[in-house]
């Protein structure tokens, strides 16, 4: 789960940078960069943090 989270976070960055090569349009690059940031945030706050929340001490 943690590995998937890490890959998701890194994948968001890779997507944002790939946008620079995918299109030369400023609007397109902006959109892809925002999408990449969203994927990274999902990976960190959703997947990774979700892993720790499932094992949270107050649930024990």
């Amino acid at each position: 789960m943690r590995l998937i989270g890490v890959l998701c976070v890194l994948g968001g960055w890779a997507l944002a940078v790939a946008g620079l090569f995918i299109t030369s349009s400023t609007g397109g690059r902006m959109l892809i960069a925002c999408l990449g940031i969203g994927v990274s945030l999902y990976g960190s706050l959703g997947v990774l943090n979700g892993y720790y929340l499932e094992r949270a001490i107050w649930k024990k």
Partner: protein
Amino acid sequence: MTGHMRTTGLLIAALGLIGVLGFAAPIRAAELNAADTVLTGISTPKAEDIAAKGDPGAELYGTANDVTMADAKKGLTLADLANQAGQNKVAINFVWTLIAGFLVMFMQAGFAIVETGLCRAKNANHTMMMNFMVYGLGLFAYWVCGFAIQMGGSAPIANLGGVYPVNSEYVVNFLGKPWALFGTKGFFLSGATYDVGVMVLFLFQMVFMDTTTTIVTGSCAERWKYSAFAVSTIFLGALIYPLFGNWAWGCGWLSQLGVNFGLGHGYCDFAGSGVVHAVGGLTAMAVAMQLGPRIGKYNRDGSPNAIPGHDLSYVMLGCFILAFGWFGFNPGSTLGASGNGALRIGSIAVNTMLAGCTGSFAALLYMWIRYGKPDASMAGNGLLAGLVAITAPSGFVNTLSAAIIGWVAGILVCLGVEFFDRAAKIDDPVGAMSVHGINGLWGVLSVGLFADGRSNYGGSWNGVSGSVTGLFYGDAGQLVAQLIGIATLVGVIFTMSYLVNWLVDLVVGQRVAAKVELNGLDIPEMGALCYPDFQLKASDYPVAAGGSSVASSAAAYKG
């Protein structure tokens, strides 16, 4: 009388120089040799006059007598004047940058008492000692390799006389573009980097790195094992911070997005909303997530409890110290006060002041309206949030934009604290992830929105001519560059911090035992109480509501 004569003499000499350089340019090379052009007719005060009468009016000091001559027998030449002017410019910039660095160094004291004040008395020694030791640990790591990785390829820096010894950057070519990854000169400040300009640059950059490391200690306070903190801090100062610092400030690939991809002036971060604060805030999140919340922070149903700090006066005083230090942080980032548009320091200082003010005001109003009281600690965090947010755009925006940026930051920090507390459930005793993480990212973004295209730091920035201009002033490309910077922070820097601290957890163990946490970290971790004469409660986790579930959590830890 003497003063008039001196002024007249200097005026004649200056007019003569302008005439020769300006109107007789074609014959300049042939007939004017600055080293041979001896200046005469300059009347200067005699040493015996000063010795006899003193100089109460400050009229006799600072004359042509004080210009260093290469050859005293020949007399004062044009070359002597030009060299003295150059030395004075660099001297002004050295002194400005060093004093700004000293101010930033003093911010460590502010961070120390803000964080300690927001923690419980039973952990005060531990929290204070983490803040104290980031200075030594961070400095050591940065001297060994951090500085070289970050600034080893950053030359030339004109305001500091060039700092030419740091001139080597490791670059790879990928998909037809150069990607500058890290510097390679300046390890241990040895070899040619034993250089006065490099030393000034090192001191200034080192105190910035130290600010980053001290952000993490706040979020992880009251449950972080001291040994794990020490190892984690060394990695942050030696590797993680310097890498992003290089990409943004050391001629790395983010700063070259303008040159290589036509995105405005590349990633722009004037004083470090991203480089310093977002790196610190995201690292804090990565570690706090792994540590888990303090015992008693959450009830069995997941609802949070407030755990008040032990000294609000510490917190407010610390905020003031930090606001004072920020006048080194932002205006000091011109790396000078003379030349290349550095006179903009006045504007940068006012922007800094304004954003802190509106941030504090916005946070105070938000809390007052939402919870019925003007919360002191959140007003302090609002001040810091405004300062964090204005750090990146401070050199590129006008005062109205600075006020708006600070205002938004003040609201964001309140929303951020609520988000981490209630939704993400990542325990952050001091709100550092909201202050530095969220508002660091907001500061980076705001450059791409509010930069007004009026700044001029020597005619170009990051190798692109003209002024940095944001979306609202006509350059959407700059916003894309800032977004790529944010993607790198949340994608790469967070991941690096997470993996490094995962490793630290496996090898050292990140969290103290439950018994240690409940009794306070001061004795078990540090060997001494911060307040030995005070009566401390051994397990003073808070509030009646949810008390049983808190006890269950504690029991689970003990087990």
